[in-house]
């Protein structure tokens, strides 16, 4: 885990100084005072000597400064390789690197985390005839470059260190490949662009970050006073506040028509845009939830975007040509093909105390008319009483008992003979309209026993916040999704009619995907879509944890 610190902000002035220093450097190396006419040959020879010194430093046993020492083998492998030329003591590469680190904020990173000021003064203070010293500078720059590239590309934290609910596989930077790639990149900008998270989700957040930083620079927005719900057509002195607030982010007309205290249709439209971006009921009514969302300060919104970008660094670089993505914080599932969202639907996710975990996996099969097996703990704890007092009631809901290969009617067993520690049955619910998993489940077998499924209780989808489950994910349009998942999975002959007919039989049917479909369970409180920049509540308080880690607040100092 890393901590921020206050370092040396790099000014434009110092970049110019660097350019100056580099001029001195090239002049000294290329054209000694006696022979002003520089030749390419001489430059190359000087650089070759520095490179040999760099290799020598790395190859010898003696201790090197820590950032270099920690990457010794990788650096040595690179510089020793055929074509492993110097990366930084050439052209305006040092300036480019310093400028890139200086601009770290655009990617939601913190410029103060990188020693730009120190790298600059290294160059400025160096004796350009000291080839050993120059070799060390080259290595310092390489180390700083690798540090930044890792932060940009795979994130500053191991996901699991920040939050135990994140089970994403830790990604690590291929440092050798990064060195090779930067050597041949036309510019550092090109390099960093191709090594930052590649998904369009990240790129759009990057844009949103710039936009919200601008809002912040311009002073953000003022609080809208609380009060009773405001409905379209009403007149209220708070209308002016809402107008001003939404003029910043939702294209409300800051002036409004005459009689500006009237909640007019144009402003209603802006409120509805705002509601859509925040996952609120789109009804134009400015109630408490809308006011609370409007009054979140711009700094917090900037922070949410930064956190979402950090989480994208943890995601697999290749999401798949087709995939499912669930955003737990957005209560939303999307099916994406070739970068286009083809299907979106509401989902119900785990309650805060039975949180849906974050990880990536593959959907391997779907099950129509699934059985629901009551988890063993729940069976004894919650159902035993009912089994003893009224086994018929449970049987009427389709429950039966399974022992090995035998299936029993619940009424055929004397349940008072069994109890905790002596319960040799599995309790399961037969497929059918009352089944707790509904008509279909989507399986991506994983250690968390999490899957997607239908539900017979569909009313919850109408709520704007949907964290109700024990961890599994309930989807709102299960059969539509099943149809498309089978297509994406390369299963032929399963059109909607066949699905419907199979469902109607109440018979348990497993359909295996020929090509497993990637699924990504994510937790993002900020993202960009056709509604603009979306923000959601931090239902699991996971933003708070990541932010504390970024701020080094785990220890209050």
């Amino acid at each position, binding site marked *: *885990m*890393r*901590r*921020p*610190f206050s*370092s*040396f902000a790099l000014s434009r002035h110092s970049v110019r100084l660097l350019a100056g220093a580099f001029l001195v450097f090239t002049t000294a190396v290329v054209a000694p005072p006696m022979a002003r006419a520089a030749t390419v040959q001489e430059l190359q020879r000087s650089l070759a000597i520095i490179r040999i010194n760099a290799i020598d430093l790395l190859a010898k046993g003696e*201790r090197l*400064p*820590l*950032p270099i*020492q*920690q990457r010794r083998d990788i650096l040595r492998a690179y510089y020793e390789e055929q074509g492993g030329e110097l990366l930084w003591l050439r052209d305006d590469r040092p300036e480019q690197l310093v400028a890139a680190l200086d601009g770290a904020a655009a990617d939601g990173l913190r410029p103060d*985390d*990188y*020693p730009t*000021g*120190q*790298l600059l003064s*290294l160059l400025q203070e160096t004796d350009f005839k000291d080839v050993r010293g120059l070799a060390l500078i080259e290595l*310092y720059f390489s180390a*700083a470059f690798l*540090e930044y590239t890792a932060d940009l590309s795979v994130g500053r934290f191991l996901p699991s260190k920040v939050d135990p609910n994140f089970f994403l596989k830790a990604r690590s930077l291929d440092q050798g490949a990064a060195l090779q790639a930067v050597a041949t990149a036309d510019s550092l900008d090109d390099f960093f662009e191709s090594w930052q998270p590649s998904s369009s989700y990240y790129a759009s957040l990057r844009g949103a970050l710039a936009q919200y930083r601008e809002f912040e620079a311009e002073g953000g927005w003022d609080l809208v006073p609380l009060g009773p719900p405001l409905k379209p057509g009403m007149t209220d002195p708070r209308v002016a506040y809402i107008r001003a607030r939404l003029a910043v982010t939702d294209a409300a007309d800051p002036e409004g028509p005459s009689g500006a205290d009237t909640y007019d249709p144009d402003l209603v439209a802006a409120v509805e845009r705002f509601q859509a971006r925040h996952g609120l009921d789109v009804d134009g009514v400015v109630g408490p939830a809308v006011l609370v969302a409007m009054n979140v300060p711009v700094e917090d919104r900037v922070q949410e975007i930064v956190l979402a970008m950090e989480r994208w660094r943890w995601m697999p670089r290749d999401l798949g040509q087709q995939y499912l993505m669930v955003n737990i914080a957005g209560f939303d599932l999307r099916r994406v093909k070739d970068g286009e969202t083809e299907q979106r639907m509401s989902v119900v996710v785990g309650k805060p105390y039975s949180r849906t975990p974050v990880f990536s996996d593959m959907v391997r099969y779907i099950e129509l008319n699934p059985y629901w097996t009551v988890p063993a703990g729940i069976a004894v704890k919650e159902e035993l009483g009912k089994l003893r007092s009224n086994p018929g009631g449970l049987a009427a809901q389709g429950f039966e008992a399974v022992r090995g290969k035998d299936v029993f009617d619940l009424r055929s067993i004397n349940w008072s003979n069994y109890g905790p520690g002596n319960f040799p049955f599995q309790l399961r619910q037969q497929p059918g309209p009352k089944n707790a998993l509904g008509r279909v489940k989507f399986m991506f077998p994983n250690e968390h026993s999490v899957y997607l499924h239908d539900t017979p209780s569909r009313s919850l989808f109408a709520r704007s916040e949907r964290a109700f489950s024990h961890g599994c994910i309930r989807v709102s349009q299960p059969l539509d999704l099943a149809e498309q998942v089978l297509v994406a999975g390369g299963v032929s002959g399963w059109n909607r009619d066949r699905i419907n007919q199979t469902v109607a039989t109440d018979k348990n049917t497993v359909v295996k995907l020929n090509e497993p479909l990637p699924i990504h369970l994510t937790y993002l409180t900020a993202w960009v879509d056709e509604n603009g920049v979306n923000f959601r509540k931090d239902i699991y308080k996971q933003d708070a944890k990541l932010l504390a880690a970024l701020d*080094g607040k785990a*220890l*209050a*100092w």
Partner: protein
Amino acid sequence: MIRNPAARWMARATVCSLMLLATTGARAGTLEDVKARGTVVCGVSEGLGGFSEKDAAGTWRGFDVDFCQAVALAVIGDAAKVDYVPLSATDRFKALADKKVDLLARNSTWTLSRDAGQGLEFVGVSYFDGQGFMVPALYGATSPLQLNGATICVVSGTTTQDNAAAYFDKAGLKVSFLPFAERQDARKAYADGQCDAYTADRSALAGERADLPKPDGHMILNDVISKEPLGPVVRDDDAKWVNLVRWVLFGLIEAEESGLNQSNVATGQATEAKRLGASSGPLLGLPDDWLAKVIGGVGNSGEIFERNLGEETPMQLARGINALWTQGGILYAPPLQ
């Protein structure tokens, strides 16, 4: 940093001057001794940047020195009436127990064995310190967790190395230590690049950093890996003196919280200081205007911090956890009522 107790002789001159004091004030209470003597004898460090050291003119200055003066102002009404006795880490508690000093204001960590085992009493916490790390700024490190493979300079004979070893062990990182008996040698080795990092209490690191050839080239990481609450110490057999010193400390904190400072006390606007002093003076055996004198002389806890350790000093320490509890820190005093 917690020194292991080990006997060592005090400097000869100090011993001689103290013998005299010890004999004159053998019977009466410490407060009576101090009043009769006309000075407070205050044990300080042998020279620790920002806390207690002699400036170029030979005048003692620092955070701990100001506390000595606060006690002198409360009892005698004059900040100059302090005899400073520099004490080594190993000698300090014995010197106090042997009545060679009236109190210690000497960057000492409050621990159970020191509080309960030696007839001493910590009156409170004046500075919340903790062990940290200094690294070259060029490293671009933001956390000690980035120090895998590092060689770390450390002063031996204290708990510092053990703390750090336990910390890295728990984090699953491998580091090696380069221990030195003397602080100057450890600093020199670090300055010469023999080590990647230097670990000590953060307040001490701030002083060391200020003494490096290029302080800006080094940074102290934010992480703190141990609790080191520093505070004044007195003997525990003189309840009156314990209370007095304790409430001088609390008075400095309470003053900051009530907005009393050196300038508004000096201009006589601060009736609050007088009110607080008048109600508490008789209970502590102090004149009614004791708090006004203290704040007028050395300022409140915030002013003492900023003057000796703050961002504008060579120490460049942020107030951080040492801010008042009302301002995001944990500095807290019971009410002066």
